[in-house]
């Protein structure tokens, strides 16, 4: 008897192991689909059902997801690179050469890290454009826009701190110039510059500080803020969408105001309750406590017609974006090598000494005036961006690209985008030795 139960335990072991990890089999019913979504740690971030409008590919273009996946790729490749990197002025550059010559896939990993970093700066900027042009920062999503701007700045700062680590000419002079720009901030500028560099000029202290910021402080802060950013998407009622996207789901003769202001909570009747809710025949919706959500954006009202189950619709879309992002980074890394210039020469800056492309707009402005170009105008731009959702209180045109009602706001933002891209193009292609104007042709 004991023998038999031992054998049966052994034969059932794989299945038992599997079921102890994954609570649900691959779903074949709507009940299964909803259970899979909220019993899995990684999936429960998503709602069980999403509005059809949310997964239209051309609405979001997956830009936020691309940014996030690039961040994940950066963490993985970054940790791998850390196994070989030493933040010392004596060794850092040699370690870069070692990556090329004596580390398996060393060049490739560095390429991936570099191109994913550039890609993330671009993706996070495009994501911001998407959110603006679709009016998605409007109430109740104001604070998530603010978090997004902070994440954008942190992305730039991560990239800036990473730039010093190879300890080549580009690294040294970009950071010398960048830290000097910080020094132009009123009152605390010099203090910030000194804290950042740990010395009066870029050297060993600065390298160590930038390393710690790059591999520990910034990724931690960003991970936390990304979590809040994602969490708020759900708490703010999912992705923005036009009113029509919800309209079809409302039972005739019943407006949003008709929904109970006080939650009408029935005792939770296990997940079967979800099933009964999904059935359109039920007149009065009663639901268990999955979460107490205030305001008119409870999902219950629009379950029947206009939404689809996250499994598989949303998850397949996300997987597709991930595969596409990874493929893009891999192809870039196979085709192009991350540049590495000569080792640091403190006496001779390269001529012209150019920052990475996304900072060239800033460098172009700085070449007119260090304070206004480097501190004044960027600070104003960031302040205005942060305040956008609190200044533009109109409720029209949410969830539509280039809505007619938002012509003024969109035009202003488009001007901002074009000016900044224009400055980057000038800085990249039209500036030669001594930052003199040259023609690229």
């Amino acid at each position, binding site marked *: 008897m004991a023998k038999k139960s031992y054998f049966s335990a052994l034969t059932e072991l794989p299945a038992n192991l599997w079921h102890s990890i994954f609570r649900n089999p691959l779903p074949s019913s709507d009940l299964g689909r909803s259970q899979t979504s909220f019993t899995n740690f990684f999936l429960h971030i998503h709602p069980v059902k999403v509005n059809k409008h949310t997964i239209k590919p051309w609405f979001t273009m997956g830009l936020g997801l691309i940014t996030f996946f690039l961040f994940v790729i950066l963490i993985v490749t970054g940790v791998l690179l850390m196994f070989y990197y030493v933040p010392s002025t004596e060794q850092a550059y040699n370690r870069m050469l070692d990556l090329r010559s004596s580390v398996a896939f060393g060049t490739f990993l560095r390429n991936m890290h570099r191109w994913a970093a550039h890609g993330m700066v671009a993706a996070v900027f495009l994501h911001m454009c998407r959110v603006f042009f679709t009016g998605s920062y409007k109430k109740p999503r104001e604070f998530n826009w603010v978090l997004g701007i902070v994440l954008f700045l942190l992305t730039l700062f991560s990239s800036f701190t990473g730039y010093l680590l190879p300890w080549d000419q580009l690294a040294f002079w970009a950071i010398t110039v960048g830290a000097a720009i910080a020094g132009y901030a009123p009152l605390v500028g010099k203090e910030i510059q000194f804290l950042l560099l740990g010395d009066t000029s870029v050297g060993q202290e600065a390298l160590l500080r930038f390393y710690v910021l790059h591999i520990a402080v910034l990724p931690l802060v960003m991970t936390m803020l990304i979590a809040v950013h994602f969490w708020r998407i759900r708490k703010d009622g999912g992705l923005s969408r036009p009113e029509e996207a919800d309209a079809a789901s409302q039972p005739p003769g019943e407006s949003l105001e008709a929904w109970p202001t006080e939650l009408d909570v029935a005792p939770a009747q296990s997940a079967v309750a979800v099933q009964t809710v999904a059935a359109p025949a039920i007149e009065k919706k009663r639901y268990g406590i999955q979460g107490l959500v205030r305001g008119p954006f409870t999902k219950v009202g629009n379950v029947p017609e206009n939404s689809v189950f996250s499994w598989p619709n949303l998850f397949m879309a996300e997987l597709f974006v991930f595969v596409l992002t990874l493929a893009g980074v891999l192809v870039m890394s196979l085709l192009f090598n991350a540049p590495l210039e000569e080792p640091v020469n*403190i006496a001779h800056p390269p001529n012209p000494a150019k920052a990475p492309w996304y900072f060239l707009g800033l460098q172009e402005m700085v070449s007119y005036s260090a304070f206004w170009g*480097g501190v004044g105008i960027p600070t104003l731009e960031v302040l205005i961006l942060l305040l956008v959702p609190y200044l533009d209180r109109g409720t029209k045109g949410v969830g539509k690209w280039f809505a007619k009602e938002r012509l003024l706001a969109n035009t202003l933002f488009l001007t901002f985008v074009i000016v900044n891209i224009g400055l980057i193009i000038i800085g990249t292609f039209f500036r030669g030795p*001594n930052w003199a104007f040259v023609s690229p042709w």
Partner: protein
Amino acid sequence: MAVAKKAHTSEPEQTEGQITRRRMLNWLSSVGLFGSAIVSVFSNLVFIKPRATYGQPNRFSIGKPEDFPSGTRITLSEQNICVVREGEKLCAISTVCTHLGCIVSTSETGFACPCHGSRYDQDGNVTGGPAPKALPWYKVTLAPNGELEVDKGEEVAAGTYFNA
């Protein structure tokens, strides 16, 4: 909770605006606790601000006056200064661009910065570009051992020469 309520009702004279002992103690302890929390955040800032740096010392020797014959105009790349001597007059001009800290190179007309195109004349005065002020001149003295000493901690007005 119940105790608190009782204590409150036992003092019927008490009006809303007056400060009870309880409120006073609450207030003092919160200020104390949160205050020390904020102070401890500032202590982190103090912690990351180095008290000693490992870079170039401010004061350094550059050699004997004979090493710089009249007509010399030589850049010392490690110290980032340009030593100029004409006749008996000798001076040390910074080669760190006042705009954003790049190292200027000597050009025919004086100094030029490769980063953002600032230009200076032979004495370090700005002649073009975004540089906000002239290149500083540093104090040159003769140490007892007969070697010239430059002190980057002490700027002197342009045109103040050391008499070799």
